[in-house]
Every structure is written in structure tokens, then in C-alpha cells.
């Protein structure tokens, strides 16, 4: 017994020493690594309004449809997560599958943007980007792929202007905020949104980051970096890790007035799914979403939990609607090997089948 115990302690010590050695060796690798491998798919700026930019991707594959697709990401993170690393780029995969893609870049709001409202974002910037594409292609309707908060925005737009949207794809987007499954949903209900907006004007991105890491403090602040030691000598692993790390903490601030309404009307009062939400004086009725809908949900998503995403399918008026779930998290749904092999091809095929 004594010998066995001593042996296991020595084994453990040896493993700790190995980790220390990896840590020392890894310093050199870390200091010389290339990790900014994102946003590399070529694209051109085609329209700009204030800080919002609309890009069109330049594809090497001939589009299989004449109906273009607009990709809309959340205001809270940068959309390049969808074009992160060549072999995991969701955008590249969609292009290869034959879609003609545009993407909205919301930019980083500064002090002068504090009065921008949800109406400005949805009916203004988003609406104008959609109109630009419609006009450019001489089409009445275009396709939408939307992620997270972008999904909520695009669904609201689709309910107000169904005549402009051919097909709607929502990915990891929240619609029913009454759930307590996710910490963000629980904590948001006890939050004084007015105080936060009044104090800052532009709600700092670092505030949002601190909320995100607080969801799993030990895992996200400590354990993640311990696990990293094992892969320190693997350049690819490190590059992936650092790319994701950069994206995680690259959170734009939030224009105060838009954030106020978004948090109070949706996260606290859950008005959208209850049919009580209004935008610019207009009532938003989800039953007006009548175009084909594909709702993609990550079963392991702890930010936008499935319980917040799934109810959309029952709330819309679409006859052609589909809910698909994958065992992935909030980032993995667009930036993982599974998203490459399964999710992007599924989204592309679903759109192409309905864009003839």
C-alpha cells in the first residue's frame, strides 16, 4: 500500500513536471505563432451607412442560384467567427456549396451612437442593406442567414416586411426569453437596464465579456488555460485556440437606446413571443413570418439555450418550417468541424432547394 501510494505520487509529480516543461517550451511557440487567420475569404465593400458596412463575398465557385443570401450576425460579437480559419470557415463552405453571399458588418459603436435605436438597426441599416441587394439584383425577395441576436432582428424584420424575404435561416437565436435554463436569461431579469444605459451611453463590450465568462468562471477563467498546456507544442491547436480567444474578447460596445429596448422588451418582458412587441409604432406579429424557415439550434449552447430558440417554429405562420439541432455550442455551431461537415451543407442545401 505504502509503495503504491508513493508510486502514484511520483507519477503525478512526473506529469506535473512534464506540464511545466511543456509550458516552458511553449513560450517560444506562443510568441511566434500566427493566429489572426480569420476574415480571409475575399469580399468587397458594396454599401455603407454610418458604421454599418455591407460586403459581398467573392466566390471561386459559380453560384447555383440567382437569389442572393444576406448573412446577419449579432451586434454583440464580430461576425468573423463565421469566417475563422480556412478549414473551418462557415462562409467559405456556404460559397463552395453554391450560395451568393453578402454580409452585414455592424462595426464598433462609439459615443455618438448612443441614441441609435432598435428601429434604426432593423428598419434602417438592415432594411437598407436588404433593399440595396434587392435593387442590385432586381429582385423582390432575398434569402437571409442570421445568427444569435441577428436572428432575432431578422425575424422581426421578416414579420414586418415578409414580401422582401424569400427564405429565413436562424442559427442559435433567442425568441422566447422566459426560460431560466440559461444564466444570461436568469440574470437579465434582475438587471437594472436603465441604470446601465444611463451610466454608460454605450454599454461597454467588456461588460458583456464579463457576463459571458461569469457563466462558467472556473472553466473559462482557469481550467481552459490548464488544458491549453497539453497542446502548447501543437501549432495548429494553439492557432485555433488563440483565434477563438481573440474573437471571444472582441466584443463591440452596445448603442445604449437599442440595448435598452432589446433588453427590456425582449429579455425582461418577453414581448416578442407574446405578440406584444412593437417597433417604430408597428406591432410585430410573428404569424406574419410566412416564408420558409430553417431554425438551427445547438444542444450544448449555454448562452442562447435551446429553450429560447426552439419556440420560434410554433410561433411563426410559415407552412414550410424545419427545426434542426446539433450537439454543438454557441460558437461551434458556425466554427467547428461539425459545422463544416454537417451544418453549413445543410443550410446551403435547404436554401438552394428553395431558391429555384
Amino acid at each position, binding site marked *: 500500500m505504502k509503495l503504491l501510494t508513493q508510486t502514484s505520487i511520483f507519477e503525478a509529480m512526473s506529469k506535473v513536471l512534464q506540464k511545466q516543461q511543456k509550458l516552458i517550451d511553449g*513560450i517560444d511557440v506562443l510568441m511566434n505563432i500566427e493566429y489572426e487567420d480569420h476574415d480571409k475569404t475575399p469580399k468587397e465593400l458594396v454599401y455603407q451607412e454610418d458604421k454599418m458596412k455591407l460586403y459581398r463575398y467573392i466566390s471561386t465557385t459559380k453560384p447555383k442560384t440567382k437569389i442572393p443570401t444576406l448573412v446577419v450576425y449579432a451586434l454583440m460579437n464580430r461576425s468573423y467567427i463565421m469566417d475563422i480559419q480556412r478549414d473551418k470557415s462557415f462562409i467559405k463552405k456556404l460559397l463552395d456549396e453554391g450560395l451568393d453571399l453578402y454580409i452585414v458588418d455592424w462595426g464598433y459603436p462609439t459615443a*455618438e451612437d448612443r441614441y441609435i435605436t432598435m428601429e434604426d438597426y432593423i428598419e434602417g441599416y438592415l432594411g437598407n442593406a436588404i433593399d440595396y441587394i434587392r435593387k442590385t439584383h432586381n429582385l423582390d425577395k432575398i434569402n437571409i442567414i442570421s445568427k444569435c441576436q441577428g436572428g432575432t432582428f431578422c425575424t422581426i424584420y421578416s414579420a414586418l416586411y415578409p414580401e422582401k424575404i424569400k427564405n429565413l435561416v436562424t442559427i442559435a437565436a433567442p425568441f422566447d426569453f422566459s426560460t431560466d435554463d440559461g444564466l444570461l436569461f436568469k440574470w437579465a431579469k434582475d438587471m437594472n437596464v436603465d441604470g446601465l444605459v444611463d451610466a454608460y451611453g454605450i454599454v461597454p463590450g467588456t461588460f458583456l465579456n464579463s457576463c459571458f465568462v461569469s457563466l462558467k*468562471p472556473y472553466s473559462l477563467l482557469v481550467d481552459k488555460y*490548464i488544458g491549453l498546456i497539453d497542446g502548447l507544442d501543437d501549432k495548429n491547436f494553439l492557432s485555433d485556440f488563440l483565434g477563438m480567444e481573440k474573437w471571444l474578447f472582441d466584443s463591440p460596445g452596445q448603442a445604449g437606446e437599442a440595448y435598452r429596448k432589446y433588453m427590456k422588451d425582449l429579455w425582461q418582458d418577453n414581448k416578442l413571443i407574446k405578440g406584444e412587441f412593437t417597433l417604430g409604432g408597428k406591432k410585430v406579429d410573428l404569424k406574419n413570418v410566412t416564408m420558409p424557415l430553417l431554425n438551427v439550434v445547438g444542444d450544448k449552447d449555454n448562452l442562447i439555450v435551446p429553450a429560447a430558440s426552439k419556440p420560434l417554429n410554433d410561433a411563426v405562420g410559415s407552412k414550410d418550417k424545419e427545426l434542426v439541432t446539433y450537439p454543438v455550442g454557441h460558437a461551434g455551431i458556425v466554427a467547428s468541424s461539425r459545422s463544416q461537415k454537417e451544418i453549413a451543407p445543410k443550410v446551403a442545401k435547404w436554401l438552394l432547394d428553395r431558391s429555384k
Partner: protein
Amino acid sequence: MATNLNMFNQSIEAQKNMFEVWQKMFNPISEEILEKNSKDLMNYNPLNYFKEIIELGNKLNSNYMGDPYQVLKKMNESTDAYYSVFKIWQKLKEDTFEPTAEAMKVAFEEWREQYSEYMNKHYIPLLPEPMKKVLEQSMSVMESYRSATNKFWEPWIGNEKELSDAFFRGLLNDPSAYLEYLKLWKENYDNSFSKFLNTPMMGINRELLEKQFDSLDKYIRFNVHLNEYLANIYKLGQETMKKTLNDYAAMYKEGMQPKSFEEFYKYWTKEINNAFDRLFFSDDFSKLVGHTLDAMTSFKIEVDKLWEEYLTFMPIAKKSEMDSLYKTVYEMKKEIKSLRKELDEFKALKEVNSEKEKSKK
């Protein structure tokens, strides 16, 4: 210290002293003095301290952006935490170690000291500089105000003993007692200092004094909430380790204990994550997060007002003035966009009409 029960004199003396101190601290500094002793004065001026706190919200959770150097630093910090868990496992694996209650207590105490150190070294440093200062200094603020309880109004004297006991028992060694202390502190504060700070002021500096006291009141409330938040995290860490050790003892008897350090670490990580989930998903904690955030933003709003008051005579635009300008620009831009849209529609209509005219001809 002998207890002085002359309440009236104490009360008058305390108010006088406090008033004088705060008057001195916040009086605008003359240019002469500034020139003469600018460096020292700036160091002394509490507004410098407030300035750092203002940055708090902007830098919440530090300026960490995940670049390689920062990642390396985090890895080093994390390995310390990892090592502290290893140390306790090593203790459990010592050949002479038997999981008796006494031995477990000793092992826990050793880990507790490391955990406190870990929290101080690695949790608090994750916070931005201003917040770190708030945390470090809030302890001394607490201590200062605890001392003041010996001299101040009746509500403090009523339970001063419990307060002192809870404070010294508590702090980081016994977070439950510390939470108890905070609760008492908050009640007493509401009944004494807070009332004093919110008393209507008189005289030519009335508005300025009210803003100063209001910001101080908000600052203290923010500290109390922040301390309560952190004490909960400390408490969680200690309770989890106690539970882990008890469970380990039970498993040891069955011969089912984790056999390697990796297993033990995995087991401990799972326990601490579950414990965080239990705490974070509780209604009380959610409310505490809300109150802490509310206290922070209320404080910031008050300090911003105070800053603007001080900057009134400076030749610079204030934030509220800039906000007003931003609002005007926003509304003008919106109007221009709307007019441009109308103009485009008119142009399109004109073109259609002109085409029609042409085809008629």
C-alpha cells in the same frame, strides 16, 4: 479602548470631523497651491481615486484580449490553482494519512490558505486595475468604518460587539461570518452614515456638498455589494472543498476514491463547476448580481455628475453637453436620411413620368 458613552458629544464631534475631512478633500484646489505642491496634492486628491473607479465599467474584467502574452500569463496563473489542488491530493495520498475528521480539517486548512491566496492572486487580478484597488481598499474602508462604529451613533453601539466578532471571525477565513458582518454593517450604515450623507445641506456650496455626499454614499453601497459578491465566491470555494474532502473520506472507506491526480482534479473541477451552477442559478445570487450592478452604475452616474461640477469652470466640453450634441446630430442625420429617401422616391417618380411623357410624344 475605553468606551465613551457621552453620545451627544461623540455625535457632534464625529460629524464635525467628518465634515471637515470631506470639505478638505473635495475643496477645489487653487492654482497657487497646485503649482506649489501639485504632485503631492494630486496624489492626495481623492478625485484621482474616483477617476480610476470611473474607468472600472469601461475595463470590467480587464483589458484582456487573448493575445499570446496574456494567454501565457493566464496559463501561469492557472497552473498555480492546479498546483494547489495537487497539494491537497498529495496530502491525501501520504502513506500516513488516514481520513479522520482531524486530518481532514488539517488538510482543508492548508488548502484554505492556498485558496485564499489563489483568489487574491488570480481571481482579483482578473479584474481591472481600478476594481482591484476598490477591493484592496474596500477592506481598509471597512476597517476604517468599523473603527468609526466605536465612536458613532447609537445603532452602531447597540451591536458593536457582534459586528467586531463577525468581522474578525469572518473576512476570508470564514466567509459566512463575513457575510453576516456585511449584513449588519449595511443595516447600521442605512441607519446612520447614509442618513447623515443624505441630510439636506445648506449654504453657498449646498449643491456641491450634496453631490459629494451622494457619491460617497453610492460608493460605500457599491463596496458593500461587491464585498458580498466576493464573499459568496469565497464561501463557495471553501464549502466545495469541504464537501469534496468529506466525499473523498467516504469513497476512501469503500476503496472507490480517485486513484490518480488527474482523476482527483477532474472530480474536483466537476464539483466546483456544479457548485458554481447551484449558486449562480439561485434567485438570491441573481438578485445580488443585479444589486451589485445597480450599485456600480448608480455610483458611476453620481461620480460623473460630480466630475462635471468640478469641470464647470474648465474650457472643455462636458459629457452631458456632448450627449446633447450627439442627440442633435443623431436627429439631424435621421432627418437627412428620411429626406434623401423622399428625394430618391421623387426622382424615381419623375423619371417614370418623364418616360411616360416621352412615350406619349
